């Protein structure tokens, strides 16, 4: 069964890389949707969801990734959101956690790390973890 991943980054080569890495995976099938801004991310989550994982940049041109994450959490409390950012300030880690993110990775990420984190989060059975949401 294919897993759906939303990649949010304003830097096109980064999006292309993540897409290429995920689509080259042999053991699993990933379907990648790209968004270049926070607005595009929220729109994609609304119209093309649900997703199994969101990889979210912080420095987005229209709004910061933390705000995007908070906005996402209003509509979906269980989708794993992993920040992938070049910001490595301690307070950014804290903001990432406080805004409802599940993990925080600092660029540049080795291909191996990217693969393992994507596999880890997409293999979580969301319905099992959050039974109260499983009825629908």
């Amino acid at each position, binding site marked *: 069964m294919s897993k759906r991943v939303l990649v949010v980054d304003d830097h096109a080569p980064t999006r292309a890389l993540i897409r290429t890495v995920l689509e080259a995976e042999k053991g699993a099938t990933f379907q990648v949707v790209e968004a270049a801004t926070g607005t595009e991310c929220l729109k994609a989550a609304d119209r093309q969801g649900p997703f199994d994982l969101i990889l979210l940049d912080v420095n987005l041109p229209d709004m910061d990734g933390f705000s995007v994450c908070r906005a996402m959490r209003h509509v979906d409390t269980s989708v794993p959101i992993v920040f992938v950012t070049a910001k490595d300030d301690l307070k950014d880690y804290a903001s990432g956690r406080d805004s409802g993110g599940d993990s925080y990775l600092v660029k540049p990420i080795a*291909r191996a790390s990217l693969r393992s984190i994507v596999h880890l989060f997409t293999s979580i059975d969301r319905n099992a973890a959050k039974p109260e949401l499983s009825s629908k």
Partner: protein
Amino acid sequence: MILGRPYPSGHVALVHGGSEAAYAIARMLRSAGHRVTVVEQGRRVIQTVLDAAPDLLIGSVGFQDPPLASVIRTARQALPEMPVLVVVGRDDPDALVEADEILREPLDSGELDLRVGGLLRAQAERRALQRRVDELLGLYKISWAFSLAAGPVAFFGHLARQSAQLLKARKGLVLLFEGERRQIVGQLPGFGFTPEQVAHVRYGVDGEARSRWNFRKNGPLISNKPASDSRLLSDLVTALELNSLIIAPLVRGPEIQGLLLVADRIEGRFLEEDLNLLLAVAAEASGAVENLRLHEELKRANTLLQEYDRLKSEFVAVVAHDFRRPLMAIRGFAELVLEEPDIPPDARQEFMRTVINETEGLARLAEDTLLITRIETGEFEHRWSEIELGPFILDAVPLGLSEHSVLMDIPAGFPKIVADADRLRQVLTNLVTNAVKYSPQGGSITIRCRERGGQHVVIEVIDHGLGIPAEQIDRLFRKFQRVRTEEHMRISGTGLGLYICRLIVEGHGGHTWVESEIGKGSTFSFVLPLDARAAQQTRHKPSEAERPRPLTGPGSGN
């Protein structure tokens, strides 16, 4: 009170039963220069004494209606400092009444004169002493206010009010000399003035409108009819409704810091001794004014330093981010190519192209950052050369990179200029690249060169792109500042390009500016001296733009 004479004259109230003796005493006193009020028995005695408020009371024990003792007791309750001299009969006992001095009849005119004079002098001295105590208390209150002053407004208010109250006047104001603008400026809140009146107090110390009184040369000023006083600025006197005034300069070393003004609505209000008192206040206050000025300056410098510090950490954070971002794609694609033997050749080629593009971007960013650091720290040295602008621009502009048409508008026979060719190329490349980037609809880009005044050249890069909101124009040439509109945000940029342009142009002794209209396009312009090398000799340093200024005293720049 005149203390120089041995026996001052004064006002004496005479409470005496026997009218003949009373008039004899009154005559003696009057001939010695005293004023005498004779109080007769039985008719509003106490009220008459109180109304007279004499400097001295002389009573005789023969006064019975009411008894002298009760007259003295009652009068002393209202006038506690008034001395009392009692005249007793030849055979009367001494201790009948409470008195400062006792004289026994018959009276000798010489002795009466001596006693009265002594009492009056003691009285005058006591009053002078009391006044001095009041003054000291006032000064004490003022210096106390200095130490408690919470910021300039509280301080100037205190100083103005205490100075006025000390001189029992209705108005007070502190005026400060502002060195940079060479102006005397009234400081809010003042005492007895409206804020509008205080705001009115602002005049230059040079030129026509200055006051004709030079405080540095002539010292303090006292004017009891300011309206017709040619030493003063008549419009200020009218605006502030000053009918008598004293001004004492606030002096620190050789510098005049400002002025302390005390004024009143009544003409002829001030005496020489008021001036002395205000000078004492001014001397006391000048130290506090200096401290306050230093404190404010320190606060300003501190704010600047904090701002500088904030900009620096922001710079580090942004640079760190911008350096890491391309690395992600570079590393990732390189790993893919290395680890995945099955990637088809054209995909492999595309990956490597991305790696190279990102590496180039990274190299540019490194160059930009290094250049900025070198210029900002003053380590940058220009390499001057003669440039023929027409061919130079043609060569510098990255033609064929986009679908935009680039037009050149430069008059024939344009003079050669002297500039740093590599840096000038960078300015042109940045401006033209921006023009292309922010004109997503295409269109033409014009580069126009014009000579100005035989000394300068103006170069404009004109596009028909997105345009810039008016309120964002001012910060465009600052570090990491980009136009923030939805359309601009879609286009990536570091926010360093225009800042570099500005640093380079200012390093050539020129300046940059931009005119723009939303939706119509922008014109980025810069002006350079025709010979930047020669112009540099007459300037001292490159751009100080983003550096905090060192502490400067008022007027030190003059």
